[in-house]
Every structure is written in structure tokens, then in C-alpha cells.
């Protein structure tokens, strides 16, 4: 029963959709639409013709030969670039052939303002400082042969173990 109702329901829905779509698809404009459009077009054309053209030459070119404005701009910019490059190259060639440019000579002032920063003479070699009377080499204590010796009268700090003074016999 329910299955039998489904096709009927489907066709009814389909018919309803068709009717709704037909209502918008077959809408008729109010009479005189064409006339109103043509009138508006005519007034618009008059406005367009009476409006001043800002760039008449370009507009004429565009209209007559159908050259797009972008292409025209591109060609113009290319021409300008070629002219600039050619001018620069010819100028540099002329300079090169007419004169050989020598390297600039730097004149350094010997005195006055800026002399100190301009001239940097080499610092004089420092003379050796004469050694004082008590001067000795750092390793002079150990310069003698054998072990270091501790004087018998030397004092030791309390608590510090001091090796016994070496005797000549023990050494031998």
C-alpha cells in the first residue's frame, strides 16, 4: 500500500516542482519593456557622445585599429628602455675613447687638522730596558747544579714539614 503510494507521491512532487519552475520560467514582463530599454539606450548613447574624451588620440587609435591600450603601453615602455640603454652605452664608450682616467693621487697632509688621522707612521722600535742591579732571571735559583738547597738558618712556618738538610756524606 505504502509502496503504491510512493510513485504517486513522487509524481505529485515532481508536478509541483515543475509548476513552480514554470511560474518563474514563463514570467512575462510588463508591456513596453523593449521600448523602455531602447529609450534608455538612446539617452545613454547621447551622454556617451556628449562626454569629452580625455585622450582623443588614444581613443581614436583604440577604436580604429583595435590596439589594446596595454599593448600600446608595453611597446612604449620597451622603446623608452632601449633608448635609455643605448644612450648610456654610447656615452660610456665616448668617455673611454677620449681619455684614460688615471687613478687619483692621494695627498696626505703632514700637519694641521686631519694630519694625525691621515698619516700613520710606524711606531719607533722600543729600546731594551736595562736591567736593574738586583735583577736576575726567573730561573736563576734553579740554574745551579742539583737540588735546591735550603739555608740552615731559614725559618719554617709552624706546622710545615721541612726535609732535613742534606749533608755532603749522604749525597755521596
Amino acid at each position: 500500500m505504502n509502496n503504491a503510494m510512493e510513485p504517486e507521491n513522487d509524481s505529485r512532487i515532481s508536478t509541483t516542482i515543475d509548476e513552480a519552475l514554470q511560474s518563474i520560467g514563463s514570467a512575462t514582463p510588463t508591456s513596453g519593456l523593449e521600448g523602455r530599454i531602447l529609450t534608455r539606450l538612446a539617452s545613454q548613447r547621447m551622454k556617451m557622445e556628449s562626454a569629452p574624451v580625455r585622450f582623443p588620440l588614444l581613443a581614436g587609435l583604440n577604436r580604429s585599429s583595435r590596439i589594446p591600450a596595454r599593448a600600446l603601453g608595453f611597446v612604449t615602455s620597451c622603446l623608452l628602455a632601449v633608448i635609455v640603454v643605448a644612450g648610456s652605452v654610447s656615452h660610456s664608450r665616448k668617455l673611454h675613447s677620449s681619455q684614460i682616467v688615471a687613478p687619483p693621487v692621494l695627498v696626505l697632509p703632514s700637519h694641521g687638522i686631519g694630519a694625525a688621522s691621515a698619516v700613520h707612521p710606524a711606531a719607533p722600535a722600543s729600546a731594551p730596558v736595562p736591567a736593574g742591579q738586583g735583577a736576575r732571571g726567573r730561573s736563576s735559583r734553579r740554574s745551579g747544579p742539583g737540588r735546591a738547597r735550603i739555608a740552615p738558618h731559614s725559618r719554617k712556618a709552624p706546622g710545615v714539614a721541612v726535609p732535613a738538610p742534606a749533608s755532603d756524606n749522604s749525597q755521596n
Partner: protein
Amino acid sequence: MSCFEGQLAAWVAPAHQKTVSTTQTIATLVAEYSTALYRVAFSVTRNAAEAEDAVQETFLRVLRHESRLGEIRDYRVWLVRIVWNIVLDKKRRAKTRPEGEDLADHARALPSGDRPADASVISSQEHARILALIDRLPNREREALLLSAVEELTTVEIAAALGTTESSIRSRIFRARRELALLLEKEGIPR
């Protein structure tokens, strides 16, 4: 006629003839396609005045680009595309006015038949409800379905206007109708 006048006439005459020919072409286009364009516009706007405005705007654009008229292969598709873009633009800009509320427009849109006035109004209300459901469909499906409603347009032309293939349009219309039927079942259609 002096030599100068002769040269001037030679310059001006082609331009004048060209203007006359484009004017004639546009007038022919208006006579041939204005009703179809009105229906396309009305399918989106559902308002007579807005649809007419859209059609006028379409032909104003044609006038602005009259130099390109010679390059157009299919005028109908070209014009449908223009009016379609215009009405979609308008719809995007003015979301204030809900569609399908103007019953007078729907009543005017209905073909005059032998139905009594109250039956027409009831039918118009029902259609308005269905059109409101159509607005809930996804964009692609809705567009294809609305354009398919316009009598003058074939599936090929709809495909060209929407920039897709004919098979895609067919499947979109099928999906749209199926979706719409489901929505109608949910809502419950009057018996």
C-alpha cells in the same frame, strides 16, 4: 564639394555607418532577447521591477562594449551570462529584501489561464514556498535548476553560460530536483 569636404566625408562616413549598424544590432538584440533575459533575471530576483532593471543594465553594458559585438559568437549565451552576473551581484549586495515575498509579482508571473483568482493566489503561495525551498539548495544545483526553468534556454546554452559541461548541468539539475523533493517531503506538500 571641395577636396577637403570629400576627405572628411570619407573619414566620417564609415564611422557613422558603423554606429548605425551597431545601433541596429543592439535594437535587434533587444527585440529578440529581452523577454528571455527578463525571465533569467526574474528567476533570481523574483521581482518584476528588479528583473527589468537588470535587463536594462545588461543592454547598457552591451552598449558600452559595442566595439566587441563583432567578436561574439553566441549572443544569447553572452547576454545570459551578463544578466546572470548582474542579478547575482545585486542579490549579493542587497540581502535585505527576502525573496518570494511579493505575491503580486508571483501572480503577475503566472500565465493567465482559466483559473479563478483565489486558486491563483493559493497556487502562487505554494510556488513561493517551493521557490523558498529552492533557495536552500546548494549554489551550483540551484543555479542550474533556475536556468533550466527558463523556456528559451537549452541545456547546452545553460552549460555555456555557467562555464561548464552539458553533462554536469544535467546531473546538477537531477540532484537539485531530488534534493528539492526530499525537502518538500519533509515540509509536507499540501494535498
